[in-house]
């Protein structure tokens, strides 16, 4: 028990006595502490990395005086997969397939910021077809709803509001069904490509979206009814994880955390991309600077996203048959997908064309798919407003067929730094609430 089994051989890694807690051994720990004559209340506790309340593999190192947190530190990196490095060894289009896997709750935003950077480097920002832009907005706003739903659902679960969890995942499933219908996948879509989107809307998608909007208009008030004035819910969230505007800016916080201080900074309004200036929506703020405010901001933002989805669906109704990929054949992905008897795959018409009809089409297909296109040398940074804040990709090209460097400024990574300032001095149970209000996604934090 005095031996730290996780420390290296002979390494003096911790000060004081180390206990490895395996459960049901509290008596032996208190006994051991009193034997040492160090029976003060100060304990250093590792929470995580495997803990249901740490949003994935987040490790919290908490120093406790009784139940009060005196110091809180994060240990991250458990989900580091080297996505940025891997992207340097694939073509520009393949990069989308990698970066969509970073923040797995908001894959379209990862794709979007990367693609916007590539498009700026290519100089084709103004050539993206309208329908592609509207589809991107539609998918992103649906994604914002699903991401906020998970945040509210898991946040509710962590404070014991299990119904919020079950209904949150129930509604998220509806969004994922729409994603599956439109992109073919529930997550990791790689659907937004440099130059447009991978594919046109399938038949019947607009009807499904309209049904979804109608259903959500009935379902979203349930969250408000369950939580907004719930005394237990408010008791757990109000005043917890306090961070004012000054603290937010110093720590680089963006997204709902920043907006919960009453400052309506939203990149969709202030630096619009993808045609956001054409949609009517309001930036949602709250003025309490606490976890409750962030919950309300997210809840209201889902309504606003629904408004945008409605407008985007209406526009898509008038864009039937319009192109979804840039006209430049040197950039547009040559392959076409179609639904066959065994699911989605390469369109047989396209295969027939390149294999049987046109040698030039085959060469073109081969060159674009294996080599890819070249991107003029330079660097670009085009951030988007993800559900968690400013998500930006610093994309650097050396003029080759692969990204020279792609660095993602992930809002989860940046916002997680506020854990200490939000939870120190509070109760240990409030640490969970504070972190849930940041809504970190470890896939994005560690990349």
């Amino acid at each position: 028990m005095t031996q730290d089994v996780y420390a290296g051989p002979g390494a003096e890694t911790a000060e004081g006595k180390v206990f490895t807690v395996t459960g049901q051994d509290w008596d032996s720990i208190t006994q051991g502490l009193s034997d040492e004559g160090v029976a003060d209340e100060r304990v250093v506790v590792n929470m995580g990395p495997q803990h249901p309340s740490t949003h994935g593999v987040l490790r919290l190192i908490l120093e406790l005086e009784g139940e009060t947190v005196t110091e809180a530190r994060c240990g991250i990196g458990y989900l580091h997969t080297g996505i940025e490095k891997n992207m340097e060894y694939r073509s520009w289009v393949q990069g989308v397939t990698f970066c969509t896997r970073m923040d797995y709750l908001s894959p379209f935003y990862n794709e979007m910021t990367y693609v916007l950077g590539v498009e700026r480097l290519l100089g084709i920002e103004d050539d993206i077809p309208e329908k592609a832009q509207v589809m991107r907005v539609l998918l992103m706003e649906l994604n914002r709803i699903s991401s906020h739903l998970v945040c509210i659902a898991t946040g509710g679960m962590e404070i014991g509001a299990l119904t919020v969890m079950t209904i949150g995942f129930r509604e998220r499933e509806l969004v994922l069904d729409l994603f599956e219908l439109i992109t073919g996948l529930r997550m990791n879509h790689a659907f937004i490509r440099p130059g447009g989107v991978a594919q046109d809307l399938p038949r019947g998608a607009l009807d499904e979206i309209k049904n979804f909007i109608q259903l959500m208009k009935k379902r979203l008030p349930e969250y408000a009814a369950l939580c907004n004035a719930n005394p237990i819910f408010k008791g757990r969230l109000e005043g917890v994880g306090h961070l004012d505007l000054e603290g937010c800016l110093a720590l680089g916080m963006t997204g709902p955390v920043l907006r919960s201080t009453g400052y309506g900074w939203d990149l969709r309004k202030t630096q619009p991309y993808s045609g956001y200036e054409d949609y009517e929506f309001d930036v949602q703020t709250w003025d309490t600077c606490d976890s409750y405010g962030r919950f309300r901001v997210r809840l209201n933002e889902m309504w606003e996203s629904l408004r945008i989805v409605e407008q985007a669906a209406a526009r898509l109704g008038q864009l039937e048959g319009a192109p979804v990929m840039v006209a430049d054949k040197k950039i547009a992905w040559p392959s076409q997908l179609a639904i066959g008897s065994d699911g989605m795959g390469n369109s047989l018409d396209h295969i027939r064309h390149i294999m049987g009809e046109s040698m030039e089409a085959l060469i073109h297909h081969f060159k674009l798919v294996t080599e890819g296109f070249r991107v003029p040398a330079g660097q670009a940074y085009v951030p988007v407003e993800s559900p968690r804040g400013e998500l930006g990709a610093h994309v650097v090209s050396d003029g080759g067929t692969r990204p020279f460097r792609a660095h993602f400024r992930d809002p989860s990574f940046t916002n997680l730094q506020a854990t200490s300032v939000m939870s120190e001095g509070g109760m240990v149970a409030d640490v969970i609430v504070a972190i849930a209000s940041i809504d970190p996604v470890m896939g994005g934090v560690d990349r």
Partner: protein
Amino acid sequence: MSDEKAPQVPEAKTQDPSTDVVRSDSQVEQAVGVRRGMFGAHGTGDTSGYGGLVAPVVLPGAAQRPFGGWYDEVADALESTIDVDRVVIDRGEITFHVRREDLPVVARTLRDDPALRFELCSGVSGVHYPGDTGRELHAVYHLLSMTYNRRIRVEVTAPDDDPHIPSIVDTYPTNDWHERETFDMFGIVFDGHPALTRILMPDDWPGHPQRKDYPLGGIPVEYKGGTIPPPDERRSYS
């Protein structure tokens, strides 16, 4: 292409990419690397003649005054404090290249000057240019002024053999983790950082994975009798 088999291929020194390239619009640009050949075939196979191509990799060059719009205001305010090495305006984004020893002053000025007010730092991103001799490691900062709704980029460099850049955590506390990540991935030492330790890789990890000389790793995969090499050893287009 190996030299003894193809003596007719001109030597690279006929086009020395390390010297500055002067474009027709008189902007002096510095090459950060050199690209050889075309199809990624080296040593054998390429009979097209394109294997002898040598092309410098040139990043966008310095812009000339007037920059236009608010770019001049920011540049004036910065240049009243320090010497800006180079201002690059490319694709609507402005980049200030400053000397690394000036970085803390630059950051403080950008944040506190009422005419600048860059309140938010979106972190630091490292880039490793092995061909940019003497300035191999670049640290790129993206700054946002919410007051004026402006975005700029500040870039500093450090040589590989002296990878030190001053920390700006005391101006932008958000850079704490970002600088740790850049140290972790590139080995750039941010002097003055309160606790510069690894953040994503394990504490005892050797090397800095995002550097260009660090291999991607991976093992060959056998499939139906064929062997597919790991991604960084596959034939690739140069």
